[in-house]
């Protein structure tokens, strides 16, 4: 006999914050004696360090002028960066052909924007990146109507970006295939995948770069000769592929077996269910470590200095030792670090935005 009627109680707003700004400060910074002392020490430290940093970086810095003017001044020598900027960005690339790497950079920015805003479907994205790699290579190397530029003249940020972008674009699909291969039921494929992954993971990148520069010519046909840049690029791709494969494998293992069973029960073939059901969910699960590997790759390219290539960091070092501008290593490395940071942080933010797309589902 349910005579009583249940009327749900209305939702009420939570109680307002009981703290004003003064109380917030007190609570977070001056809660007790120990906390207050730490706060005061922290403030002292900030004031102590801000002054000199501000003077050196901005107030006393020299923005225009030559080496002598810089030496006379107290602060940073940003005019050194301005004078050498082409070296930093393009290495020894012929100065009258700079429109080519600049065009390549613009295309990279456009392709990245298209990918990040997800305007175009996945297949088109793959084609765009492939086209970008091919066109950029053509713009850098020349041939087919453009003046040739030998790879020994490639350097600076241009080289770093090229090695990183091609490394990432090539190693992600290869890494995915390798991860699938490792989980394959065909014993030989699985065995070969494991051997590859564990061999590469057991060797430092420096060693792989050395080995690539020395060993690769042995694998090539007689007479064919790859420049150092190519050998290094292949080494970087192999290195990154192994690590990406492990990240993807982790993602694959996290997928409930019911997903594969449901796909099987519907009659979907192996490749279709892997590509459309399993992989999208697996990759979405490991976006963070995946982007982390990309960021690491960007920074790892600095190691090419050991095989004689002058990437962004290498050029910075070399620029600081040029006869006209001696003694400004600090500015060179700080500039280098700042650009690396912007690129890596950009990648990190992009990764975060990708994660949030998935979180909405």
């Amino acid at each position, binding site marked *: 006999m349910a005579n009583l009627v249940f009327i749900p109680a209305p939702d009420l707003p939570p109680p307002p914050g009981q703290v004003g700004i003064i109380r917030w400060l007190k609570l977070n910074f001056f809660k007790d004696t120990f906390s207050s002392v730490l706060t005061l020490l922290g403030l002292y430290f900030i004031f102590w360090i801000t002054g000199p940093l501000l003077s050196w970086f901005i107030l006393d810095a020299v923005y225009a002028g030559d080496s002598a003017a810089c030496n006379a001044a107290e602060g940073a020598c940003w005019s050194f960066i301005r004078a050498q900027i082409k070296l930093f960005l393009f290495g020894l690339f012929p100065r009258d052909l700079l429109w080519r790497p600049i065009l390549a950079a613009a295309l990279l920015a456009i392709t990245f924007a298209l990918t990040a805003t997800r305007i175009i479907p996945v297949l088109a994205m793959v084609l765009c990146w492939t086209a970008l790699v091919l066109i950029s290579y053509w713009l850098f190397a020349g041939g087919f109507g453009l003046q040739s530029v030998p790879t020994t003249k490639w350097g600076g940020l241009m080289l770093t970006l090229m090695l990183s972008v091609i490394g990432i674009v090539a190693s992600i699909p290869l890494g995915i295939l390798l991860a699938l291969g490792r989980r394959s039921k065909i014993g030989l494929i699985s065995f070969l995948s494991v051997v590859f992954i564990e061999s590469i993971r057991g060797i430092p990148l420096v060693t792989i770069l050395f080995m690539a520069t020395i060993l690769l010519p042995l694998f090539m046909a007689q007479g064919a000769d790859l420049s150092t840049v190519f050998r290094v690029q292949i080494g970087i791709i192999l290195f990154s592929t192994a690590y990406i494969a492990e990240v993807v494998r982790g993602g694959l293992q996290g997928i409930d077996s*019911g997903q594969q069973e449901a796909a*099987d029960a519907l009659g979907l073939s192996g490749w279709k269910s892997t590509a459309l059901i399993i992989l999208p969910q697996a990759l979405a699960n490991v976006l963070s470590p995946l982007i982390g590997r990309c960021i690491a790759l960007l920074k790892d390219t600095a190691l090419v200095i050991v095989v004689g290539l002058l990437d962004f960091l290498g050029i910075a070092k070399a620029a600081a030792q040029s006869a006209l501008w001696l003694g400004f290593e600090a500015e060179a490395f700080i500039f280098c670090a700042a650009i690396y940071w912007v690129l890596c942080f950009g990648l990190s933010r992009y990764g975060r935005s990708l994660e949030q797309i998935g979180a909405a589902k």
Partner: protein
Amino acid sequence: MSEKIAESRGGRQKPPAVIELTDVHKWYGNFHALKNIDLTVRKGERIVVCGPSGSGKSTLIRCINRLEVHQRGSIHVNGVLLTNQTKNIKEVRQEVGMCFQQFNLFSHMTILENLTLAPILVRKMPANDAVDLAMSYLKRVNIADQHDKYPGQLSGGQQQRVAIARSLCMAPKVMLFDEPTSALDPEMIKEVLEVMVDLVNEGMTMICVTHEMGFAKSVADRVVFMDMGEIVEENTPDEFFDNPQVDRTQSFLNQILSH
């Protein structure tokens, strides 16, 4: 002779067998999971399989669409012998729909995409037709307004109804249900069972592993009781519940019908 005449005159022709399991055995390593399974399911029949945990009920129906592989005996689905050939397995899976205890919806796709995926990719249906088909089945399970939501945004009962609609989009000849309501809270069980009863009323051949004895009593043509990998008893619901022949069946019924 006289029986044949009687059959063709007034007696009914038995409907064709859709699923035939003959002397099926399955081992997991050394563990003998299915023993001496002989089961025939005819078109339009509704079979409920029940039994204690570990009795092999799920293994049995998963063998039918090759999610599990049997090592001895034969399984025929719609006349097709189930073997290791991929083409063969694919043919069978297109005729057999399955609903799982955990729904197994594709969480990175919308409800509509979940439903249209298989018709487009497996039956090569044009996208527009697939969408119309999907929407019609979503309407049938009363969930058409949620078609652009993601599975994570739906309740368990809604997800299971979507899963049923997803299987139906492939127009299967048989529907297999592996404890479809076991992961649902009591209020949602009813909405899913109603959908299943609708299916049954339209003549769908169905094998359902379930603990819902009310459903078995009202809907099943036959109840199959399994224990320790074997079919212990098989009978019409009335006979099964009121007049069990085997002692094991009796003890099982005592346990489940007492609360």
